[in-house]
C-alpha cells in the first residue's frame, strides 16, 4: 500500500512537469496580448513595453518557461498581473469556497444516489425504478447553468426559501479561520454562521450535484443488478442470513466497487463544473476568478490555478484508488 502511494506521488511530479509545459504553451497560444489586456484601449507603446519587460514577456518563450519552472520549484507561483496579489494567497482564499461547494454536491450525490440506485435495482421494473432511470437521464441532460438559474429563480427569488447568492449573509459577522465557512462556524461555535453558510450551499449543491447524482444512481443500479445475479449471493441466501445482512454485506458492498471508481472521475467534473454554478450564485470560488483570468490573459493565475487543480484532482484519485483497495482485497494484493 505504501509503495503504491509513493509510486503514485512520484508519477504525479512527472505529470505536473508535463502539464506545466503544456499549460505554459497553451496560455501563450491564447489570442490577445496580456499587456494590452491590462492597460486597455489607451495603451501606449511605451506602456506595453514596460509591462512586457516587467513580466518578462519580451524574452524568448523557452527562457520564460525555464524562469517559471525555477520559480515554482521554489514554491513561487508569481502574482496576478491584474491585481498584484500572489497566486498562492488568492488560491487559498478562494479554493475553500469551491471545495465546500464541490463537497456539498458530492455528499448530496452519494447520499441520495447510492440508496436510490440500490432500491431501483431491487425493485427492477417498478415505478421507483422507472422514475430513477428517467430522472437520472434528465439529470445528465439538463445543463448545470440552466438548472442553477432555474433553481435560483423558483426557490430563491419567487418562493424565497433560500438565499439568492453568496456564501453567507453579510449581516452575520462571522469569524473566518479556514475559509470553509461551515467549518469555521463550528470551530468558533458560531452556530448561526455555520447554519447560514449551509443554507447558502443548498441550491448551488443541488445544481452542481445533479450530474454526479444521475451518474452515481445509474452505476449503482447497474452494479447492484450485476451482483444480485452472482453465485455468492445465492450462497449467502443458502446460509440463511437475514435479508438485511445479505443486502448490506453481500450485495451493496460488492456493488460499490464500480461506484467508487466513478467518484474519482466525478471529482474532476465537479471542480470544473463549479465555475458555472459559482457564477450563477455569485460565489467567490476559484471558478469565477479563473474565468476572469482567462478573459484578462492573466498568465500566472491561469498557470498556477490549473496546476493546483490538477494536483487536487490527482490526489482525489489516489484516495479513490486506496479506498478501492480497502473495499476489494484482490486489488490490494496485486
Amino acid at each position: 500500500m505504501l509503495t503504491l502511494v509513493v509510486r503514485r506521488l512520484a508519477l504525479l511530479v512527472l505529470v505536473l512537469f508535463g502539464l506545466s509545459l503544456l499549460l505554459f504553451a497553451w496560455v501563450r497560444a491564447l489570442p490577445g496580448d496580456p499587456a494590452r489586456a491590462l492597460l486597455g484601449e489607451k495603451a501606449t507603446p511605451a506602456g506595453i513595453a514596460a509591462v512586457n519587460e516587467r513580466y518578462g514577456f519580451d524574452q524568448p518563450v523557452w527562457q520564460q518557461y525555464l524562469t517559471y519552472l525555477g520559480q515554482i520549484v521554489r514554491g513561487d507561483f508569481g502574482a496576478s498581473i491584474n491585481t498584484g496579489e500572489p497566486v498562492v494567497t488568492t488560491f487559498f482564499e478562494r479554493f475553500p469556497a469551491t471545495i465546500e461547494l464541490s463537497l456539498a454536491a458530492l455528499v448530496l450525490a452519494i447520499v441520495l444516489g447510492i440508496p436510490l440506485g440500490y432500491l431501483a435495482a431491487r425493485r427492477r421494473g417498478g415505478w421507483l425504478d422507472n422514475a430513477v432511470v428517467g430522472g437520472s437521464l434528465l439529470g445528465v441532460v439538463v445543463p448545470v447553468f440552466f438548472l442553477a438559474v432555474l433553481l435560483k429563480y423558483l426557490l430563491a427569488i419567487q418562493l424565497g426559501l433560500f438565499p439568492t447568492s453568496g456564501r453567507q449573509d453579510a449581516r452575520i459577522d462571522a469569524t473566518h479561520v479556514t475559509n470553509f465557512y461551515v467549518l469555521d462556524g463550528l470551530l468558533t461555535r458560531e452556530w448561526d454562521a455555520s447554519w447560514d453558510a449551509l443554507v447558502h450551499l443548498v441550491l448551488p449543491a443541488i445544481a452542481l450535484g445533479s450530474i454526479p447524482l444521475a451518474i452515481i444512481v445509474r452505476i449503482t443500479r447497474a452494479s447492484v443488478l450485476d451482483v444480485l445475479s452472482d453465485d455468492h449471493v445465492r450462497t449467502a441466501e443458502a446460509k440463511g442470513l437475514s435479508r438485511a445482512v445479505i443486502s448490506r454485506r453481500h450485495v451493496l458492498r460488492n456493488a460499490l466497487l464500480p461506484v467508487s471508481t466513478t467518484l474519482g472521475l466525478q471529482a474532476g467534473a465537479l471542480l470544473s463544473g463549479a465555475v458555472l454554478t459559482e457564477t450563477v450564485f455569485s460565489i467567490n470560488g476559484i471558478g469565477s476568478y479563473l474565468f476572469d483570468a482567462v478573459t484578462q490573459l492573466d498568465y500566472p493565475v491561469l498557470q498556477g490555478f490549473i496546476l493546483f487543480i490538477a494536483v487536487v484532482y490527482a490526489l482525489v484519485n489516489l484516495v479513490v484508488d486506496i479506498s478501492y483497495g480497502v473495499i476489494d482485497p484482490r486489488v490490494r494484493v496485486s
Partner: protein
Amino acid sequence: MTGVSLLDVEDLRVRFQRKGQPATTAVDGVSFSVDAGEVVGLVGESGCGKSVTSLAVMGLLPRRGTSISGSVRFDGTDLLALSPSELARRRGRDLAMVFQDPMTSLNPVLTLGRQLTEVLRAHTDLDRAAAKKEAVELLGRVGIPDPRRRAGEFPHQLSGGMRQRVLIAIALACSPRLIIADEPTTALDVTIQAQVLDLLTTLVRESGTAMVLITHDLGVVAGTCDRVNVLYAGRVVESAPRGELFAAPRHRYTQGLLAAVPRVDAPEGTPLHPVRGSVNDRLAWEVGCAFAPRCAHADAACRVPDIALSGPRPEHTARCVHPAGTPLEVA
C-alpha cells in the same frame, strides 16, 4: 412413502413463466425421499431438472415468474408453506447446500473466516471470539492447511479445490441434518474431484448428516450413494438402491446412461454408446413416456399418459412400459 423420512419431496412441480414467452416446466412431478443419515443421488443429464429441484427444496428460486406446487416435507414441516424469513432461519441450520462452482460461490471481498463466522453467528449463540475459533476448527476439519492464517485470507488466494473445501465447511458449520450438494465436483480438476468427494462423504457419514448428491456423473454416484434416483425430463424415472441400479437397471434411459459410460479397460477402437438425441426430443408426460422419442424399445404402448413408477419391489421402481428384465442387456 412411510412418513418417517427426513426429507419427503412429493409431486414437486416448478414452472418458469417469463413475460411474453410460453411457460417452461423444469420439474414435472418429482417425488423422492431421504432418510436420516442417508446419502441419496439425483442423477440425470443437463436440463432434466436436478438443480431446479434442489433450489426449490432450499427455497432459493427467484419468486418472481416461478410457480412451485407439490410438497417438500422436512422433518414433518412443509418447507414450501413457510414464510421467507422462517425458511431463512432453517437454511444453514437444518439444511445446507454446497454449490457447483467454488470459483464464484464465495464472496470475493470478505475473508474466508468472516464467511464462516457469519453463518455460525446467524444460527448459534456463539460470540465473536468463539465463532472465530470454531471457524478455524472447521477449516482444519475440511483439510485446509494452516487454517488460522487461511481464515484471514480472501477467496482469490485459494485454489478451486480449496475453495470448495471452504464451501463444504460453511455447509457443515451448524451441523445441519441435510446437505444438498449440487454437482460439487463438476467444476474441479479431475485430480481434485475424488479428494473433495471423499472429504464430503466422509464428513457426512461421520456426522450422520443426510445428503442429496446431485450429479450427471454415474461414477460419482457409484462410490457414494445409498440410493439413486434417475431423473428425466423433470420426473424420477427410476429409483433403486445403488447396487441394484448398477447391476440391474430397469428403465431404458438408465440403461442407456450406464452403457454410455466409457470404460478404460475396453479394447482400443471400441465405439462409444451415447444416448441418441437430446433432452429436447421429448414427449410431454401427459402424452406418454418422455424418453420414448430416444428409446430403441419404444412402441405404441409407450404412448400412455402419466406412466407410474412400478416394479417387483417397492425399493426398486421404474417408470417404464418395457423395463429391462435382465441385467446388463445393452439397449
